């Protein structure tokens, strides 16, 4: 019996398909989900999410959020999510540098703005890690 996986961010529905299994990064470490998993509600950490469907494995970078497993339905509510192919290494590196630069430059920045930049940098790090995993 296959699982249905849904990954949703505030901007869009990133992924929605039936799959065989998924590994979700959580605060307590990685959690592998197979069909028949017990209902679970957990916090999702920044990290790599692996989806297995048949012989294929898809890698996604996800940033912060929640995941719910209810029956055969897996829903991931992430602040950010991007599939491996969509990650543009160069652009991410640039964005990371820019964000870090502006964090250094601005002494008394709006704390909200600072937080936003920090989470951007963290997510950029995750994206790079996912992209460079094979090398």
């Amino acid at each position, binding site marked *: 019996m296959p699982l249905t996986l849904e990954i949703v961010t*505030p901007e869009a529905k990133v992924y929605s398909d039936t799959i065989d299994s998924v590994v979700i990064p959580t*605060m307590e470490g990685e959690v592998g989900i197979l069909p028949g998993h017990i*209902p679970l509600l957990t*916090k999702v950490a920044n990290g790599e999410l692996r989806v297995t469907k048949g012989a294929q494995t898809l890698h996604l970078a996800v940033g912060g959020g929640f995941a719910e497993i209810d029956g055969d339905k897996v829903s991931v509510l992430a602040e950010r999510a991007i599939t491996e192919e969509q990650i543009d290494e160069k652009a991410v590196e640039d964005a990371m540098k820019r964000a870090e630069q502006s964090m250094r430059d601005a002494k008394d920045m709006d704390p909200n703005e600072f937080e936003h930049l920090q989470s951007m940098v963290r997510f950029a790090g995750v994206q790079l890690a996912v992209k460079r995993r094979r090398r």
Partner: protein
Amino acid sequence: MPSTRDIRRRIKSVKNTRQITKAMELVAASKMKKAQQAALAGRPYTQLMASMLATLAHRVEESQHPFLAERPVRTRGILLVTTDKGLCGPLNANLFKLVTDIKTPVKFYVVGRKGAQFISRTKRDMVADFPVSDRVAFTEVKVAAEFMVKHFLEGIIDTIEVIYPRFRNTLVQEPTVRPVLPLANLQEFVAHVKADAGHSQTGTRASDTRELLFEPNAQEVLEALLPFYVNRHLYQLVLSAKASEHSARMVAMKTAKDNATKLLGDLTLEYNKARQAAITQEILEIAASSFAA
């Protein structure tokens, strides 16, 4: 009968008005498209979050978190979401009607200049107003949300509600009062969110009856999810209000433009009549004087 010169002057002024309203209509239309997209794109997210909360609601006690517990309401806290600029039809006026209907003690938190002006003019209790830009960023709304939540937890206000123009479609925006906190009735709330997203069925979904596992534990998940939900939900409502604003403005400007066009036609007709009458008059005078000679 007004002279031809007067009519010409009026024609010119109406033409100017038409030009301005036409330009504003186009601007509003392009902004509307973006705002509507933003409002619609966020819906699956809010919806999923709502259904997570619903799953949660079955399994936790009200007393586990202050957001869930209902308490006697002494002062309501209302976030009034209005526009910064006018010229958007009855959008703001409809919201103010809702505000005037409230007779219980209430503290207002305002988004948008129009609302701030109204609340201070009518001498209601305004605690704070929050400026937001045209393309609302999450951080802008987060400031307002966290401020209200702080007051809620301190007991300065006992509810968090939002008055905003709910975006139905380009032509219809409903002024709505939406309760956000306390989350006493989660089921009802989930139905609301689903209705917003165009799902009419409110029946319970195929749910697993085995015990739900929380990781790391229920308390921690609750503490992370609930404030996050409040921020996100308020953000979604503000996005919806923005979409309403631009839609309402576009419609209002289109009506104004159409009116100007119609008026222009009438005036041109009148102008031509006056001109013709003047010519006929002149010919008559010339003929009369040549007879007399």
